[in-house]
């Protein structure tokens, strides 16, 4: 008995769907449903249709501020991770001559990815704190009299922690894209009289675009969905969309929390969809 | 080792994709006798690999019958057909040793380890790989890999061995050696080989039957010599090479001969082909083998023997080939016109580019094509 190609395909993705449907589709639907319901303000949810939760979310100036802060962090993180990730990948692909050494250095860059993000985040505390290594060092050399306050528990610390955690998401796909550039193309361009700047502009940057886009998907979705880095590293001074959502849930304001969760999910999906227009992710991965 | 009747008949084979939007194979009829070495020859995309894969059972024809040894095998699994395939890049299992690669078919049939190693070792002996039997495929040269692939396929005792571009992964030097080895292997095994290739030299060197294909259809099939020296049409002549093709119209017909006029030549005498009627004004292609052409000074124009035909041309290229010299002439408009001049003769006459010459051949050596 020969199964059709479609049947074989579906049979093999059934286990995947058996996870994705109850643990992704259903929860999103539950939140969607709750976002249209009324509450008594004490955790009780009544199946009565209302748009109040959404009008609440859209009319609150808090929402606007939260998104402004979160977009700011997303944007800054994206810029720093892309720039750092690109140059690291470029160095490994085009400047390290030994393939084995390049692979080894690449692995050294990826190892921290497999360790805990929370630990990597808190590990900045002994460095950036008021009595941290950097302040002590600067004071020791006499560069400053007072410890720099902005280093820890500040937006600066938040960006540092994000960049520390997420640059790897840029290095890997950009490294992958750059490795695919035929070195002979670069040589041919140089032979034809192109400067190294020309090669960068017309060969290397265009080729790395898809890798940066792929990395951006991870960076955007992680930063937009984060709350614990902001909470810990900002010292409570800055809120985030998810942080506010978490506090709503903490005080049992499920429907309004659900409405803001749905808004956030839509915003993230739209951002990812926008990036996916630039890059064919399937083609990118399986080459 | 005779392993059953391996004669093959393809009857009206069609393979279409996208619900009949595109045809990979469009109506193939072909008979291959048992024990023949058959080459399917054509450019890439002509459908030759698809035919091979359909015979192997890796694809099913949209319509038509594939008959092996008198039995229609469409729908049967590859093992049930008793065919075996040798893949283009050999597809040797990278994680298995030479011995385990060759014994693979026996393993999936459930033979015990000792049984399958005994049989595999006999086969390994035959292809002279005994010292290498514990190596992984990656540690073998291209030629050794080919032998492993051949042994792995042959151990299933197939009636038909299907080879998909078996020599394309090898370098030029090795290709010629392995070509010889393939042929002697085929004679050893005494089974039908069907070999897909895009290299005409490979096909005519190896095959009992050459099948020339284009766009999913057979253009001509037959013994190598027939295909080479008597191409049926311009496509076959040009694909096989070694021929000058001239296009023109019939001028006059006089019982035993006719004359043909073309863009740059006129009144070229051609023989009247048996069993084909020519008419004045009819468009026609003829082919003349490049090694049948003799170059003479223009001054001899009036002094040619009666049984010869000729065209005038200007030499526009000379390539030294070792045992002969390839002289290219501007004589037939867009078509290339080449004479293969024996090396010694060329250097006696000392032709130069730009010189006008007379290209002469015997009328009876002309192949009149459709």
């Amino acid at each position: 008995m020969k199964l059709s190609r479609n049947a074989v395909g579906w049979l093999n993705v059934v286990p995947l769907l058996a996870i994705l449907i109850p643990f992704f589709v259903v929860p999103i639907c539950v939140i969607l449903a709750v976002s249209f319901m009324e509450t008594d303000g004490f955790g009780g949810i009544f199946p009565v249709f209302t748009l109040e939760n959404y009008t609440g979310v859209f009319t609150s100036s808090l929402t606007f501020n939260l998104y402004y802060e979160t977009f700011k962090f997303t944007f800054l993180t994206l810029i720093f991770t892309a720039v750092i990730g690109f140059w690291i990948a470029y160095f490994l692909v085009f400047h390290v001559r030994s393939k084995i050494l390049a692979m080894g250095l690449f692995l050294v860059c990826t190892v921290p990815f497999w360790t805990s993000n929370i630990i990597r985040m808190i590990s900045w505390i002994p460095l950036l704190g008021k009595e941290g290594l950097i302040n002590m060092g600067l004071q020791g050399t006499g560069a400053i009299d007072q410890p720099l306050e902005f280093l820890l528990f500040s937006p600066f610390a938040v960006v540092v922690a994000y960049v520390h955690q997420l640059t790897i998401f840029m290095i890997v796909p950009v490294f992958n894209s750059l490795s695919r550039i035929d070195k002979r193309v670069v040589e041919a361009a140089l032979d034809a009289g192109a400067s190294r700047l020309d090669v960068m502009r017309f060969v290397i940057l265009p080729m790395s675009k898809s890798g940066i886009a792929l990395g951006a998907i991870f960076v955007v979705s992680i930063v937009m969905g984060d709350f614990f880095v902001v909470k810990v590293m900002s010292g409570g001074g800055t809120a985030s969309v998810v942080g506010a959502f978490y506090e709503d849930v903490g005080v049992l304001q499920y429907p309004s929390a659900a409405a803001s969760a749905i808004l956030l999910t839509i915003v993230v999906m739209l951002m990812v969809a926008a990036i996916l227009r630039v890059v064919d992710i399937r083609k990118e991965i399986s080459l | 080792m005779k392993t059953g009747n391996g004669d093959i008949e393809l009857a009206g084979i069609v393979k279409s994709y996208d619900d009949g939007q595109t045809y990979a194979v469009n109506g193939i009829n072909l008979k291959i006798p048992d024990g023949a070495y058959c080459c399917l020859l054509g450019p890439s995309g002509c459908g030759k690999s698809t035919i091979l894969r359909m015979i192997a059972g890796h694809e099913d024809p949209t319509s038509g019958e594939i008959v092996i040894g008198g039995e229609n095998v469409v729908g049967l699994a590859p093992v049930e057909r008793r065919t075996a395939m040798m893949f283009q890049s050999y597809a040797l299992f990278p994680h298995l040793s030479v011995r385990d690669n060759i014994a693979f078919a026996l393993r999936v049939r459930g033979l015990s380890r000792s049984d399958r190693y005994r049989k595999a070792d006999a086969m390994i002996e035959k292809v002279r790989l005994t010292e290498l039997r514990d190596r992984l495929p990656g540690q073998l040269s291209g030629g050794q890999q080919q032998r492993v692939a051949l042994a792995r396929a042959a151990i299933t005792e197939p009636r038909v061995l299907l080879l998909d571009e078996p020599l394309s992964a090898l370098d030029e030097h090795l290709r010629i050696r392995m070509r010889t080895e393939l042929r002697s292997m085929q004679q050893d095994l005494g089974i039908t080989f069907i070999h897909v290739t895009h290299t005409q030299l490979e096909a005519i060197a190896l095959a009992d039957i050459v099948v020339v294909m284009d766009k999913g259809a057979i253009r001509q099939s037959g013994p190598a010599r027939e295909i080479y020296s008597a191409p049926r049409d311009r496509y076959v002549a040009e694909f096989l090479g070694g021929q000058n093709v001239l296009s023109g119209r019939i001028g006059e017909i006089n019982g035993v001969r006719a004359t043909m006029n073309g863009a740059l030549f006129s009144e070229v005498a051609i023989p009247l082909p048996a069993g084909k009627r020519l008419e004045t004004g009819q468009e026609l292609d003829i082919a003349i083998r490049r090694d049948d052409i003799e170059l003479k000074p223009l001054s001899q124009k009036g002094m040619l023997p009666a049984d010869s035909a000729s065209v005038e041309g200007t030499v526009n290229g000379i390539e030294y080939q070792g045992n002969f010299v390839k002289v290219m002439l501007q004589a037939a408009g867009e078509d290339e016109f080449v004479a293969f001049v024996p090396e010694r003769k060329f250097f006696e006459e000392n032709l130069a580019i730009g010189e006008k010459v007379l290209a002469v051949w015997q009328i009876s050596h002309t192949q009149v094509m459709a």
Partner: protein
Amino acid sequence: MTARIPGDSAKPASRVVRPRASGRPWTFYVLAGFFTLYLIALYGPMISIYILSFQDLKGGLVFPMRGFSLHWFHELFYQTRTGDFSGSFRRSIGLAVLVTVITVVFSFMAGLAFRKRFRGDTFVFYLMIGSLVAPGLVLGIGIGLAFTLLGLQASWYTSALGAQLSWTLPFGVLVMFAVMSRFNNQWEEAARDLGANASQRVRLVVLPILAPGLVAVALFGFTLSYDEFARTLQTAGPLNTLPLEIWSMTLNVTSPSLYSLGTVSTVVSFFIIGLSLGSIVLIQRHRTSSRRAALDVHIGEKQ
């Protein structure tokens, strides 16, 4: 290349890559410095907390190092004051093992499915991407709510397991795509030609050849689960996993025991990473030469 006709000054000399004595352009030195700084920033902070976790009783959260002892590790294991370290550690390992096994098996199957196109494959693919990029905490609370609605008790081995899989599976499948792209379909076809049935083809050919890739998927599955926080926070039920324990410690504990927890957790991560990379290297070394030959054949094919 660098030879220039004298007087040909139309193009400035700086356009030419002028090799230095060592033959490297200046950008090499700049980027090598940049790369070194990156590595220092990447590893420096982590190393500093490992060092600080070995302080003695007087130890604080910042440098300088005060004394040297295993006090804070002892505290971690034997004091309940700092939370339920042993229990959460065991649960995290157990959960990570479960997630790893399921991720490897399901990703492998999905990888097989996506090798050929099937009707609706794009839908499944984007569903997967959606699950990957959805805000973790939102998804976690959604799962928690769904469990409440169904009257089920949330626990680390049900709701948290599912929540983590909704993130590790898409990751695993993406890694599987990359792994499968190096798989030559002719291997499987050859096996079929030689009489192997579907299960023999998977068992004798596909699985052993893809083994290094599956180890990589397992590495992703284990470490992503072992460190997962956002999706687990609302789905773990009454008992904590290790990252949740660390999280509550970052909010409450101000002693170096926080760092020693980080050190222990990282040691486990490094052990897993070493184990995985080691076995990949081992399998690869066994076959290095065969890969190279496969590549040669591949190049020959293109000519």
